[in-house]
């Protein structure tokens, strides 16, 4: 794909970037869940718990 103006080039790249980040926005919460779901439901936390 050849571009002759910076304008066209940016239209393309920014467009793709926008699609990309929408995907990312949706992915983040899911990934966070995946990351933390094994933890005890009591507190959603970022560190393993020592049980007592």
């Amino acid at each position: 794909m050849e571009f002759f103006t910076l304008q066209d080039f940016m239209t393309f790249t920014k467009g793709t970037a926008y699609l990309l980040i929408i995907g990312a926005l949706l992915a983040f919460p899911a990934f966070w869940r995946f990351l933390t779901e094994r933890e005890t439901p009591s507190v959603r936390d970022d560190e393993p718990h020592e049980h007592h």
Partner: protein
Amino acid sequence: MSISRRRFLAWMGGAGAGTAALATGANAGSKHFDGYPGSFGVLHDITHCVGCRSCEEACNKVNELPPPDKPFKDLTVLEQNRRTTPKAHTVVNKYLKPGSEKPVFRKIQCNHCLEPACASACFVRAFQKNKEGAVVYDASVCVGCRYCMVACPFEIPTYEYDKVLAPRVMKCTMCAPRLAEGKLPGCVEACPKEALTFGKRDDLIKIARERIRKFPDRYINHIYGEKEMGGTSWLYLSGVAFKDIGMREDLGVVSAPELTSGALGSVPIIVGLWPVLLTGIYAISQRKDKAALEEKTQAIVEAVAKAKKDAEKKLADALAKAAKDKDAAVKKALADAAKAKKEGA
């Protein structure tokens, strides 16, 4: 390059994530574009213009614009300083340099930037730089936000404020439709003195250079539009300083898309990193709370334990005392018994 990167750094640095600067900042800069090869343009030799307004008339005709308030033959309108309007895509202005009585005439119309600010600003891509070099406008998608007018450094686009249903942005099209038919732009065709030269932009620059070379004392040594705002398809030669004929010399050479590329480039970065940052902060704050909670419970447990110990101790002492008293009493009793036995015998 450096500009957009600096802008970008500035912005990211402020937003607090300078890390990704190079990655995105480079987007705009490290790539270089020379525009469509062989695209057309017009060279306006201001020293040749005599202010006959033929171009205005032709423009009005070919674009089927409403008739002007004063006829085009009437040259008195040159006395006041005019700008483009929804009814006039091009106007000729007269400038009298203080001191000289010889007036200078300059034609105003869209300069058809190589990197149009209007196109860069438009959020529905209503403006397009086409391969002939014209910057064309598509009213069928225009929302009417008028950001193009804010963006245009030459103050060219105008708006039909008086229309209710279908107001349009109005500006010179470089007669794109005529070009498609292989005709010249209306104004160029009409200019009797060939103050307007139509041709490939590269050739026009050659011509301009040649004229400056041949007549160094007729022209000032600057081709306006060769570099301004990243270059324009319309070019200008003048015998007097451009700022004296209402053309800004302080626009710089940075093209419009570059001006905003830095800020735009940082958008994906923020979306990429903010969730991480914020969730991190959240997690940490949560952890603090939990820690606090644990301390509290711990304290309670200890307190309880302590209380229990004290209680047991008390009990033990009590029992010990009780035992002592008991055998003391026994001894006494025995002693008494023995005493009584002695007296009886």
